[in-house]
C-alpha cells in the first residue's frame, strides 16, 4: 500500500531497514549522527543504532570515503554520506582509484559493497563552489555504478539495492528533491536498479532526463500536451550503466531526441546520452538530437542568473517545440 512520503524520509526509511536487517551495514559521514544529517536523511538512526553503526566523522572526505573502501574489503556494507557532491572532489581518489579499481586489481577476488550517498545539483543560491554536478566525472569510471533517483519510491528502492550490491554504487541525490513528496509502497517489487522508466507516453519526441530534470521534463510534457505535442518522457534512473534499450526503443518510435540535463553542457552527461543514442538510432532520427543543459559557466550567486544557467520548464517546452519543427 502506497503512502505519501518525502524523498528524505524514503531514504531514511531505507537506511533504517538496512541497518536493522544486516549488522554489516553502517553509516558514516559529517554530522550524520547526533545532528541527524544536513538534510535529515539519517535522522533518528544514531539514537537507535549507536555510534559504531552511525558514525560522525571529522571533515576528512578523502579518508572517510577511503575508510569505507577498507571496510568494504572485509565484506562490510558501509554507506558513506558525502554532505554534498562538491566535497566529493576531495574524495575522488578514494572513489575512482580505490573503490572502482581495487576489486579488479585484485583479480576480482575482493568485494566492494560500498555505497556513497551524496546530493548534487544546483540548489538555491549556493554559488559556484556549492552547485556542482559531477555526474560526467563519475560516469567515465569503469567499475562504478551511479543511480539518480527522482522520486521517493526510487530513492527507497535504489538505495536499498545499492547497499545490498557487492559493487560500489554512487547514489546521486539532489538537494532540491529532499523535500519533494510522493507515494512509497515499500512492499512493491523493485525494477532492476539501472532500468529506465517511461514516465509518460508520447509520439512526437523523446525527452531523456534524470533526477530533478526528470520531474521538470514531465511538467514540460504536460504543457506540451496542452499545445498538441506529445512528448515521451524517459527517466533514466541510472547513469551507469545506462539502459540504452528503453531509450532507443522510445527514440525509434518518436524519431526525435531531446536530452535534458542540469550538468554543464560541454562534456556533460548529456554528451554520452546523445552520442550513444545517435549511434543506436541514427537512421531513425529525423533531426539532430538536441541537448538542453546547464550553461558552461560557474554558477552565479545571484538568484535570477542562477536560474538562467540551468534548464527551466519553459526552456524545455521551447526546445521541444523547436525540435519537432526541425527536419520535417
Amino acid at each position: 500500500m502506497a503512502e505519501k512520503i518525502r524523498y528524505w524520509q524514503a531514504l531514511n526509511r531505507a537506511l533504517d531497514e538496512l541497518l536493522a536487517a544486516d549488522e554489516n551495514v553502517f553509516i558514516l559521514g559529517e554530522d550524520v549522527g547526533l545532528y541527524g544529517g544536513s538534510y535529515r536523511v539519517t535522522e533518528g538512526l544514531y539514537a537507535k543504532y549507536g555510534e559504531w553503526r552511525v558514525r560522525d566523522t571529522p571533515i576528512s572526505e578523502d579518508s572517510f570515503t577511503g575508510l569505507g573502501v577498507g571496510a568494504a574489503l572485509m565484506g562490510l556494507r558501509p554507506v558513506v554520506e558525502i554532505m554534498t557532491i562538491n566535497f566529493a572532489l576531495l574524495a575522488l581518489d578514494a572513489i575512482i582509484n580505490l573503490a572502482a579499481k581495487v576489486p579488479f586489481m585484485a583479480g576480482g577476488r575482493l568485494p566492494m559493497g560500498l555505497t556513497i550517498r551524496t546530493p548534487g545539483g544546483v540548489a538555491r543560491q549556493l554559488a559556484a563552489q556549492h552547485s556542482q554536478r559531477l555526474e560526467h566525472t563519475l560516469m567515465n569510471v569503469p567499475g562504478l555504478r551511479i543511480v539518480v533517483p527522482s522520486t521517493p519510491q526510487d530513492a527507497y528502492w535504489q538505495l536499498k539495492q545499492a547497499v545490498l550490491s557487492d559493487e560500489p554504487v554512487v547514489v546521486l541525490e539532489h538537494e532540491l528533491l529532499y523535500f519533494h513528496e510522493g507515494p512509497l509502497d515499500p512492499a512493491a517489487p523493485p525494477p532492476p536498479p539501472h532500468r529506465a522508466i517511461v514516465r509518460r507516453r508520447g509520439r512526437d519526441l523523446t525527452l531523456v532526463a534524470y533526477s530533478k530534470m526528470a520531474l521538470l521534463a514531465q511538467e514540460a510534457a504536460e504543457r506540451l500536451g496542452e499545445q498538441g505535442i506529445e512528448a515521451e518522457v524517459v527517466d533514466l534512473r541510472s547513469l551507469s550503466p545506462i539502459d540504452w534499450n528503453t531509450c532507443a526503443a522510445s527514440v525509434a518510435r518518436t524519431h526525435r531526441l531531446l536530452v535534458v540535463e542540469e550538468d554543464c553542457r560541454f562534456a556533460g552527461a548529456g554528451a554520452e546520452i546523445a552520442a550513444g543514442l545517435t549511434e543506436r538510432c541514427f537512421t531513425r532520427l529525423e533531426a539532430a538530437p538536441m541537448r538542453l543543459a546547464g550553461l558552461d559557466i560557474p554558477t552565479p550567486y545571484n538568484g535570477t542568473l542562477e536560474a538562467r544557467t540551468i534548464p527551466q520548464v519553459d526552456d524545455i517546452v521551447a526546445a521541444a517545440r523547436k525540435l519537432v519543427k526541425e527536419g520535417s
Partner: protein
Amino acid sequence: MDRDRALALLHDMLLGRKFEERCAREYMNGNIAGFLHLYPGEEAVAVGVIHACEASDYIVSTYREHVHALVRGVPAGEVMAELFGKRTGCSRGMGGSMHLFDPERRFMGGYAIVGETYPVAIGLAYGIAMRNLPEAVICFFGDGAVNQGTFHESLNMAALWKLPVLFVCENNQYAIGTEVHRHSAVPEVYKRAAAYRIPTERVDGMDVLAVHKATEHALRQIRAGTGPWLLECLTYRFRGHSMADPGHYRPPVEVKAHQRIDPLELALRELSPIYPTPEQIAAAGPDAILKLRQYCSDQGHLPDEDFRQLEAQVDAEVEAAVRFALESPEPSLEDAWQALLANRRGETLL
C-alpha cells in the same frame, strides 16, 4: 592600548555584531539567500587579528567572513550588496555570502570548501617570500577545518620553506553539530603545530585585546623571516552554524555561559583600568553585556551617551548598507560571462 584604538576595535565589533544580526533579518525578509553563516560571538577574533595587520598583508578567510571583510575596510554597502546578489557587491553578485573578494584591499576571499584557505594562503606567502617582501598572509580557519588534509600538507610546506603566514584558528568548538572533542583526537589545535615545528599560541578569543596582542607578536616574528605562526583563538558562536541550523545540538546553558563572556563586553571592559576577574564574569550571568557596559561607563571611559552615539552611528552604517544594497541593480547574464572571461581580455590568440 590607547583609547582611540580601543574605540576603533569597539566600533568594528559593534559593526560586526549589528551587521550580522541585520543579515539574519534580511535573510528572513528574502533579500539574502543561500547559505548564510553568521559571526556573532566571534567578533574579537576578526577584529583583534585584522587590526594588527598592515594594509599590505593579505587576508584569506572562510565562508563565515562578512566581519573579516568589514574589518578589513570593505565598505559595508558592498558587502551587503553582495549578499543581496547585486552588481555593486564586492564580488559583483557572483560570489555571495561565502565568496567575498576585494583585491584592492587584499581581501582574497571567501572560500566555501572547508580547508581551502591553507593552500591559497601559502601560495600568496610563497609569492611574497620569492619576491622578498615584508608582507604577510593571514589564513583563517575553523576547528573543524583542522582535520582536512590540506591543513597538514600546507602547514608542512609553510614551515619547510619558512613562508610568511599567520594561521589563525577560530576555534568555536563546533564543526556544524560536531563538538571538537568528537572530531579531533587532539582537541587543542595549538598542539598540532608542533608536528610542523611551527610556533604557536592559544589565546582567549573572546578577549579582543589578547587576540590583538598575540597577533602583533606573531607578525613581528613572521616579518623577521622565521616562518609561519599558528594562533588558536578560543571562541564561540552564539547562533547556529548557518541560518538553516537552529543549533539545537548545543545545550542552552552552554550558549548562555559563552554569551556571558561576550567579546563585545570584554572590549568595553578593557577601556576600564579594572579588569574583571573570571569569578566576576562567571557571576555576571546572562546579562553580562549590560552589566559590563554599565561598569565601564561608571569608570568614565565611555560615558553612556558616547556609547549610545557609537551605537547610533553603527546602526546608521548598517542601515545605509542595506539601502545601498536594495537600490543597487542586479547583474546581467552578460556580466556573468564577463566575470568568467575577464582574464581572456587582451589575449589576441583566440
